């Protein structure tokens, strides 16, 4: 019977799919562990750096470092940290919604991760550049991104740079978040410094060595670089968690589907047997 064969074929294909999703789930969970560790460790490094920088800034008032200066002219730059690959649930579409609702139409956009490129262009956002990053987030790979952002900020093309990324909360929850990257402001520093630190006892005067200016000039690029790295790490951790959860759900769905199809298959088989028996008995009756 054709019906039987159809059902059998479907069961087979669903089973194959479930094996693929199962494998993807396993790969994602292995990667997730590492990405999570990096993201969470990076947070304490960032907040430590921000604390030092905040104190430094309190002590030196009125020094205008170019990375901290606010400007009135120029466009806004939005960096969107999405993923390179899909199959990670609603991660990218949530991110896109956040971008569309809270970022201005006329700003320039840079994407890290290529998945959202076509959607952004379709919504009339101007892409200035796009970068794909591999599995590992490392210095040499990120250098072009830093150079691009820094150069276009320094020459006055952009007045501010903001980053939209998926902040990693836990395996089930990732939240789209917008953080201002440049200029580096005191409020932003405070936010980062207090992210996972407790006490902070007012202002005190720090001795600065070698000189305030030299300190500020070496710490600011470091801070800027690591802030961006941190957000990319958060994005990675979110991506792998979301993919793992999505693939787990897919595998479970496939299992239920296989169960239903098997039931249907058995019913069909039973019907076929009954029909054959009927045919035989009718034939026998006719022969008598």
């Amino acid at each position, binding site marked *: 019977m054709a019906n039987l064969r159809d059902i059998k074929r479907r069961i087979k294909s669903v089973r194959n799919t479930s094996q693929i999703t199962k494998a993807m789930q396993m790969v994602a969970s292995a990667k997730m562990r590492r990405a999570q560790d990096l993201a969470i*460790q990076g947070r304490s490094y960032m907040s430590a750096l921000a604390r030092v920088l905040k104190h430094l800034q309190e002590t030196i008032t009125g020094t205008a470092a170019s990375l901290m200066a606010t400007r009135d002219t120029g466009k806004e730059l939005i960096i969107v940290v999405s993923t390179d690959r899909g199959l990670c649930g609603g991660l990218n579409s949530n991110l896109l919604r956040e971008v569309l609702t809270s970022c201005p139409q006329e700003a320039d956009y840079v994407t890290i991760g290529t998945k959202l490129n076509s959607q952004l262009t379709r919504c009339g956002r101007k892409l200035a550049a796009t970068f794909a990053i591999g599995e590992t987030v490392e210095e040499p790979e990120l250098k072009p991104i830093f150079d691009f952002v820094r150069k276009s900020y320094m020459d006055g093309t952009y007045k501010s740079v903001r980053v939209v990324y998926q902040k990693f909360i836990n395996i089930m929850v990732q939240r789209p978040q917008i953080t201002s990257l440049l200029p580096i402001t005191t409020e932003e520093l405070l936010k980062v410094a207090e992210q996972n630190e407790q006490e902070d006892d007012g202002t005190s005067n720090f001795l600065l060595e070698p000189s305030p200016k030299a300190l500020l000039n070496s*710490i600011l690029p470091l801070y800027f670089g690591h802030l961006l790295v941190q957000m990319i790490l958060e994005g990675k951790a979110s991506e792998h968690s979301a993919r793992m959860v999505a693939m787990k759900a897919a595998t479970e769905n496939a299992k239920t589907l296989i169960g239903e199809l098997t039931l249907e298959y058995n019913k069909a088989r039973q019907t076929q047997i009954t029909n054959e028996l009927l045919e035989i008995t009718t034939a026998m009756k006719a022969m008598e």
Partner: protein
Amino acid sequence: MALQFRIITPMRTALQAAVTSIQLPAKAGEMEILPGHADMITAVANGELTYKPEGEEARSLFVGGGFLQVESESVLLVTDTALVASEIDPTAVETAIERARAALRNSATVLDREEQTFLAAQLAKQLAMLEFTRKKHTLA
């Protein structure tokens, strides 16, 4: 009275301990921090950092460049590298030095200045790391 000393790198919290003294290679020169030190922020260079945990022998580790903040009795070191001698593989460091040297020599024209400074900084760090391990080995 002890100092609360923390070393934080991007990869991990390398150290969290109560210490009685810290010797470190600051950019401006070698310096020692004892309890009761004035509040201070300083840039740290590549080199050996020695600290004395409360009631224990002095220990040392290699630190890459970074920043040190002394705030009343808590000391915070933010650095990109913090390794104890056993975590450094001298042969790997030597090959890295060779590679960096070769890269600097061969492509002096192709690299832009920023890349050159980056490589040179990497090289300086590797050299300091090597010196640190050599010293440890001769002591041991």
